[in-house]
Each structure stands twice: as structure tokens, then as C-alpha cells.
């Protein structure tokens, strides 16, 4: 009996780890029912089902995209907008949702992949089932996607972050980057631009470190604190994603270094507002997320209808000249937006 008990304890421990690692795939089942139930309700001959699978749902960023997509569906009239994502940025959970949309035979499937490489075969599968496929927010470049809805170019974001920060830092000094997922392709492409652009345009500035905090705000804050301690002459911090952008600002505020250490980041307006107001954050670099959702839904409709993209597209009054690059099959929302304490109140997400 004794060895059996010991074994069961070991099995239990192993199961604990397995559960913790894979648990995320289970979490959103409760939500799936509602959305899937509404999906098949009304399908007439002229309505196209455009499904968007975000990296995760329930966060203001993707909820704002969803709001934009719904607006587009209402404006276009022939689009049924479906929106469903995992509750954590987990590739496996996201794949489950993509599979369910393939089974539902939507007309266009648009994904913001957590892991572009593992998403590629699924997009292939969707295409084989006669579904138009596209990516938005984050690309899967080595896939069969027919279009990528790009919020801004890597150059645009990397340069805007660097320019905002170095203007505050006076054009020189040491700074560090607190990033999130180590494998996030868009974050890494922005960081690459920040490195090369800083080296070429600001020769007296230096990036001393790039650290990865995952999506954990408290960890991002602690890492920013550690970076300030490790480099007492540090005068700048970049929060590369929506959880580390307020995190680095909070660290500066806690360390009483407002005005000595400057921060910028990819933060959503409402989460950055307190830090923009008290000066611990200089600027949040973002784009109009609702418009990105609008453009995503419009792209889905174009693909479903089989209409080609023009070099510049008149999408809506807000988006009257969206550029399309046929070589990379990319639609570009426009230049990034600098959100400061002066314009932060214009955004409700």
C-alpha cells in the first residue's frame, strides 16, 4: 500500500504541473457556448461570416478591435462579425477556436496568432476547406494567408518609441527594454528596429538590456526596478507591451524617479492615463485600435466577396486611404499614434 501511495503522490505532482501548463485550454469553454450559439443563427445568401480570433479575449485592446469590427459589420451590412479568443495568450487554446471556426465553415477567418509557426498549418487547413484566411495585428508570414492587416510597420513603431523616449531623455543616455513574451514576433521586430534606429540616429544613446516579463504586470514592475538598480545611470525604460508599459511607469513612480527616468511604452490609453498624468510615462505609442478592427472586418468582407485590393483603399470616412502592398499582401492602417496626457481622454479603452 505504501509504494502505491507514494506513486499516487508523484502522479499527482506530475498532474499538477501538467494541469498548470495546459489548464488554459479548458478555461474558456463556458464562453465558447454563447458565441458559437449565436453564430449559426442567421445566414442569408448575401451575408458573409467573418470570424476574428484574437490572441486573447477580455483585454481592452482586442475588445476595442471587436468594437471596431462590429461597427464595420453594421456599416457594411453584408457581414456577420464573429469574435472569439482564448482567455490567455495560449497557442493551443487559440488553435482549438480556429478549428471550431473551420468546422463552422465561416467565409473568412482572420487570426492574430499567438504562435505564427504553429498557426500556419491550421490556416492551410482552413484554405483547403474553402475558407478565405487572413491575419491581423500579428502576421504569420510563412502561411497561406491572403492578406495581413498591419496596424503599423515595425519601422513606424520602433522609430516612434525611440523618438519619444529620446526626446524626453535629451537625445542621449542609457535605456533598457522590458518586453513580454520572448517569442512574440511583432515585439521582437520592433525591438530590432529600436536597436538599429537608436544606433544610427542617437549615437550617444545605448540600450543596456532587454528583459522579458511575460504578461505579468508585477513581474514587469519588479524587473524595471531591478534594471534601475543594476544601472544607476539609467535614464529611460521602454515597456514593449500593454502589461509592461504601465509596469515600467509604476516602477519609476515607486522609486521616486519621476523626471529622472523617462518611460514610453505600447500601452492602452486608459491603463496609461494615471502615469501620463503624473509624468512617470512620457507617451504611449499605439494606433487607433477600433479603426484596426474596422479595417479587419472590411478586409474579411473584401476577401469573401472576391474583390481585389487597390493600391489605396477607401474603407471608411476615418480610413479613406489605406495603402495595400501587393508584394507582401499587406494592408497598412497608417502611422502610429503618440498618446500623451493631452489626448489620452479621447480614447475610452
Amino acid at each position, binding site marked *: 500500500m505504501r509504494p502505491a501511495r507514494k506513486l499516487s503522490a508523484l502522479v499527482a505532482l506530475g498532474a*499538477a504541473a501538467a494541469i498548470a501548463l495546459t489548464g488554459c485550454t479548458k478555461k474558456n469553454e463556458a464562453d465558447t457556448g454563447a458565441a458559437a450559439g449565436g453564430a449559426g443563427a442567421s445566414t442569408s445568401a448575401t451575408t458573409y461570416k467573418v470570424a476574428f480570433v484574437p490572441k486573447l479575449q477580455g483585454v*481592452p485592446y482586442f475588445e476595442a478591435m471587436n468594437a471596431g469590427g462590429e461597427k464595420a459589420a453594421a456599416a457594411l451590412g453584408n457581414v456577420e462579425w464573429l469574435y472569439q479568443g482564448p482567455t490567455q495568450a495560449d497557442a493551443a487554446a487559440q488553435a482549438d477556436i480556429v478549428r471550431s471556426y473551420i468546422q463552422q465553415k465561416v467565409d473568412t477567418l482572420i487570426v492574430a496568432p499567438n504562435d505564427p509557426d504553429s498557426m500556419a498549418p491550421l490556416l492551410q487547413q482552413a484554405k483547403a476547406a474553402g475558407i478565405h484566411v487572413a491575419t491581423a495585428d500579428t502576421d504569420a508570414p510563412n502561411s497561406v494567408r491572403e492578406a495581413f492587416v498591419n496596424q503599423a510597420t515595425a519601422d513606424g513603431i520602433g522609430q516612434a518609441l525611440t523618438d519619444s523616449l529620446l526626446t524626453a531623455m535629451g537625445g542621449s543616455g542609457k535605456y533598457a527594454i522590458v518586453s513580454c513574451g520572448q517569442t512574440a514576433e511583432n515585439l521582437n521586430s520592433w525591438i530590432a528596429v529600436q536597436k538599429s534606429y537608436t544606433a544610427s540616429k542617437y549615437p550617444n544613446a545605448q540600450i543596456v538590456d532587454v528583459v522579458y516579463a511575460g504578461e505579468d504586470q508585477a513581474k514587469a514592475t519588479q524587473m524595471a*526596478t531591478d534594471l534601475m538598480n543594476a544601472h544607476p545611470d539609467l535614464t529611460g525604460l521602454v515597456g514593449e507591451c500593454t502589461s509592461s508599459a504601465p509596469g515600467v511607469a509604476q516602477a519609476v513612480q515607486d522609486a521616486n524617479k519621476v523626471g529622472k527616468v523617462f518611460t514610453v511604452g505600447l500601452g492602452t490609453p486608459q491603463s496609461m492615463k494615471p502615469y501620463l498624468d503624473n509624468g512617470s510615462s512620457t507617451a504611449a505609442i499605439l494606433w487607433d485600435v477600433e479603426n484596426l478592427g474596422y479595417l479587419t472586418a472590411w478586409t474579411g468582407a473584401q476577401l469573401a466577396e472576391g474583390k481585389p485590393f487597390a493600391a489605396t483603399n477607401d474603407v471608411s470616412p476615418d480610413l479613406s486611404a489605406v495603402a495595400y502592398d501587393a508584394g507582401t499582401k499587406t494592408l497598412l492602417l497608417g502611422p502610429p499614434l503618440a498618446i500623451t496626457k493631452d489626448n489620452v481622454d479621447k480614447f475610452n479603452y
Partner: protein
Amino acid sequence: MTATLTEPPVSPAAPPKGRNRILPSPVTGQELVLIGVIAVIWVGLALATPAFLTAGSVRPLLVATAPIALIGVGMTIIIITGGIDVSVGGAIMVCSVITAKALVAEVSLAPAVLLSVAVGGVLGLLNGVLIAYGRVHAIIITFGTANLFLFLGLQIFDSSTVNGIPQTFEFFGRGAAGQTLGVPNAFLITAVVTGVAWWYLRHTAGGRHFYAVGGDAHAARLAGVRVQRRQLLAYLVTGLLVGLASCFVIAQGTSTLDQSVGSGKELAVIAAVVIGGTSIMGGRGSVLGTFLGALLVQSVTSGVTQLGWKSQLADLFVGIFIIIAVGTDLLRQGSAGPGRAAGRVRRSLGTLTGRARRPS
């Protein structure tokens, strides 16, 4: 015999030597090793980066250690009873989102803390009742409740973040308002709770009963220990501590709370407990070790950042620590040989004799 044990007679004639024999030494070998490892890491970091051993660096490190170490106290008691709780991450989410929303609604410090602790207590009580009276293994129950808690938490988040959380909890935070005589309040509270739990587990009959339950629940029951009540209590205490730790989590975060809060924290807490030398099989362990385990993990994480090493090295080191800790525990158990089971029964009975001698 059972009768005499359930009604502990005061027997001053009992030789104090007997008590010394059944009590483990105040500090175990593993804890000494942990203190040594932490000391080596801190000295090494101090030499490598002069800023490490400054107040501006050590204070945030202690603040970051606090929530894991605090929940670790409860988790240690649970694991001593032979159970486990993988729902603490979800419980943190529920407590923090409710409390954060209360703070936004301008609830003041004390009621908000009480609210968080009460919510945590309810969640812990649910786990405890299901495990103590449900006769299903703790991992299955808490896996179930973990998903329930996540669902509940996400429902309360309602597809949004909680924005504009005021500085009500700065008492527990990293800043100047979160210190007493230069020591972070969150860390002080954690140290006091750990100290009380250490004393209780070691020196009271009630405390020893947790070990008896984990050592051999059947023998403990025969000897008159209220096994189910002990189990229930372990999960309830953990829930209450999760509630308090959630206040620390809010204080350490930003003015925005998002749905990633609590994610993966169950593993971080279990890691601290295991590194601290508590046997995952139950029956043996100490909250002091867990406290040191949590401090070690945070020191390594901060150290890797301050040294400018790659962030993922912290995961590597923590993984190695866990394997070494579990490995030594298994070796220790193995070395007891075939007489182990008998030794365990003897230990359980000795524990009970201890109870009989020390009325509570």
C-alpha cells in the same frame, strides 16, 4: 486508549525529554542549506553589482517575495497534510478583481483588506469542505475549483480591465508609504504570519495534528485526531492568506488590473514550498523553509536581471533547485529503508503522545 487521547489529561509528570525527542530540530538541514545558498547568492550579487545590497534594491525584492511566501504558509500546511492546492492562482484572480473594483469604488484600506480576506476565506472553505468530506483527492478537487475560480474571475472582469485603481494599498506597496522603519510592510506581515505558523505547527498539539494527518491519516484517525477538521482548516487558512496576499498583488501592480493576475502563481507557491524542504508526500515540512524558498526564487530572478543575464536563465535555476530539493527529499525517504512505514506510524503516535502531554 483512544479515550485518554481525545481528552488530554494534564500530566506534569511526563518527562520533558520525551517532548524534545518527538519535536524536530528548530531549523532543519535543508533550511540551513537554503540560508547558505541565499547568503552566497546575495554576496555574489553584491560583488558583481554594487547596487544589489542597497535599500533601493533589497526592499523591492522583499516586497516581491511577500505574496508567494505568504500563500506558501498555507500551502505548506496543506502539503504537510498530504494535500495540494492548484487553485490559488484562480483564487488570487477572484480576490484581486473584487477588491480592485471595491478600491475603485473608493472603499478604504481596512474594509478592502477584510473584503479580500473574506472572499479568499469563502473560496478556501469551498476547497476544504469538498476535500475533507468529498473523499476525492485534493488535486482533482482543486483542479476543478481552479477552473471555477477562473470562470468567476473572468465573469467579474467582464471583458475589461479594472482601470484607475487608487493608491489605497500603498501601505503594502514598494514605495515609501509601504514601509515601517525602512522595512516593507508586506514583508513584515509575511514574516510575522510565518513566525506564528512556525510556532503553532511546532509547539501546539493542534499544529502537530497536521503532521499526523499527512504522516498517516488512518493511524491519526484511530488515535483520535479529527482528520477532516484539520484538512478543512488547512484549506481555509490558505484561502484567508490568498485574500491577504491578493492585496499585496494589487499594491505591487499598476493602476490597472488585467486578467493575467494570479496566472501561474500556484506553481510559484508550490515551487517555494518544495524548495523549502517540505515533503510533497506529506507528513514533514516547515513554513520557515517555504519562506526561504520564496526568498531564494525571488533573489535568483532579481539577480539574473541585475546581472544582465538572459531572463530565461531564472527559470533554469528555479527548475534545478526544485529537482535538487525533491531529489534530496526522496533520498532521505529512501534511506529510511523498509522500516519507514513503521517509523511513520511511530512518529504519528509520538505526535499524539506529545498532544496528550501538552494540553492546548
